[in-house]
């Protein structure tokens, strides 16, 4: 009976590994895209996605029906936390330095350094504006503009489906106001 139980446990572990890999394959790119929407930095976006999946793996079953919704919401919130500096400030400064270094290496910078610099600064202002929004508004923007449907946004954030549009419109207005009122904060 012990041998059978061990074999059964081994099969279950293999099933769990396969399920997690299926989930990863299905959702990783989307998670990165959501984080990228907030961070506008591919390296940071992948770092955030790694953290999200690592956290999910530690906490939940890959077959959970809420897996995709959890990952989507986690991607938005993890990225927003990075923007808001809830992580160590040095990490953000390092990321900014890296972004600056990458900017200098980009083709755009080589062709038009002034324009590249202005674009980078604008991008930074948008991220900071996102970070100043209410959490739910910022998350709705991150998810919706990453291509999630209203239904997916509802599932991820727990917002009733018939209210997602309203929250989204308010979020868009709030972001626009943040950028208009405090463009160079």
């Amino acid at each position, binding site marked *: 009976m012990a041998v059978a139980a061990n074999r*059964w*446990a081994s099969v*279950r572990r293999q*099933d*769990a590994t396969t399920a997690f*890999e299926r989930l*990863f*394959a299905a959702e*990783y*790119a989307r998670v*990165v*895209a959501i984080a*990228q929407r907030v961070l*506008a930095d*591919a390296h940071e*976006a*992948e770092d955030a*996605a*790694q*953290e999200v*999946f*690592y*956290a999910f*793996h*530690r*906490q*939940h*079953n890959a077959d*959970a*029906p*809420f897996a995709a*919704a*959890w*990952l*989507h*919401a*986690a991607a*938005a*919130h*993890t990225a927003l*936390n990075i923007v808001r500096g*809830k992580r160590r400030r040095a990490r953000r400064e390092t990321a900014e330095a890296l972004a600056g270094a990458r900017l200098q290496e980009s083709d755009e910078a080589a062709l038009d350094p002034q324009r590249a610099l202005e674009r980078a600064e604008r*991008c930074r202002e*948008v991220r900071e*504006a996102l970070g100043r929004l209410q*959490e*739910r508004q910022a*998350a709705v*923007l991150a998810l919706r*503009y990453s291509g999630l449907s209203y239904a997916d946004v509802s599932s*991820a*954030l*727990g917002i*009733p489906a018939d209210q997602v549009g309203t929250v989204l*419109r308010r*979020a*868009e207005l709030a*972001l*626009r106001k943040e*950028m208009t009122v405090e463009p160079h904060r």
Partner: protein
Amino acid sequence: MADDAAAAGQLLAVPAVNPDLAVALLRLRYRIDTGPETRPAVWYERVIDMVKLQRRQLIRPLGGVAAAAAVAGALVFTPAGALAGKALTIFEPQQIAVVPINPGDLRSLPDLADYGTMTMGPTPTAQHVADLNAASAAAGIPVLQAGSLPAGLPGAASYEVLPGSSASFTFSAAKAKAAAAAKSQTLPAMPANIDGSTLHLSTNPAVVTVYGAGSSLLGLNGGSAGQAKEVAGAGQTSAGAAGELRHPGGAGTSSASGQPAGPVLIIGQMKAPVVTSTGVTVTDLETYLLSQPGISPQLVSAIKSIGDPTSTMPIPVPVNMAAAHPIQVHGVSGLSLADSTGIGGGIIWEQNGVIYGVAGTFTEQQLLAAANSLH
């Protein structure tokens, strides 16, 4: 509005990222296999995953009290709707009993949604109340207070009330058959007296008293409308147990590792939940559900050994995450649960129709002393 949308679209435009999935998975696997241990999910948090009732958070496991109700409903009963005048009370626990569960048991449990249709009541929102009297008034039960606390805790407590909730579940043989066919499975036929029957689960308001760093651990204060800041899922509404990784965007993160910042004592109190049925008996349900695939013979045996299913609330305890043993508390038989991480444990008991739980980052002896001091 269209201008705002257009502006937002422009502002949020970013270069596309095309990650290399193979490389990313290797990177993640390396971290999983070699990284430092973070705080694993406490047993009741993992168990809550099992009972996802189409909402990420329904009842926050506070000292195991609310988790016990949710899990009991999932293991033995499924929540369903009661029809006034026709509902029979089939479950009203008077005592609790532990059901040891192997990790594989949790993963292989069948999806309740395959067997019928769930209907949820409004998601309860935890409310902070000023004091013990307000908590008693809100919960409708005399709320007990600890007479003695473990050393190191502040004397002041915070009080949260989680309103009661309800859910209904109606069995459907046709749905079960279709779900089985989709998975190429053959299931035991659903008895005629179960097909179409409806169960209704009602949970009563729960009062949570928190001493120490627990208020940030739980993240019960504030939160989005209609949602308690509780765990079990991601998002702002997910409650704050440990760290940002655990509950991205959730409030009350205490440390990157997820450990509570300082000692925590949590006391939960709730009138026992009630399950009513339009006709099917507990015994019939237990017999049918335990015959489903995915439930190991060991788990079946463990559930059947708990005694009278109409009056005994099963407390599932994953054996790799916690250890449980009977303990005398307040003159009745309860359960002492010790988390396998060594962080702490909890004591759960039922008395006079109320389920109590005392949990925290203390030894069993300290928790028992606090539990016995409730008055």
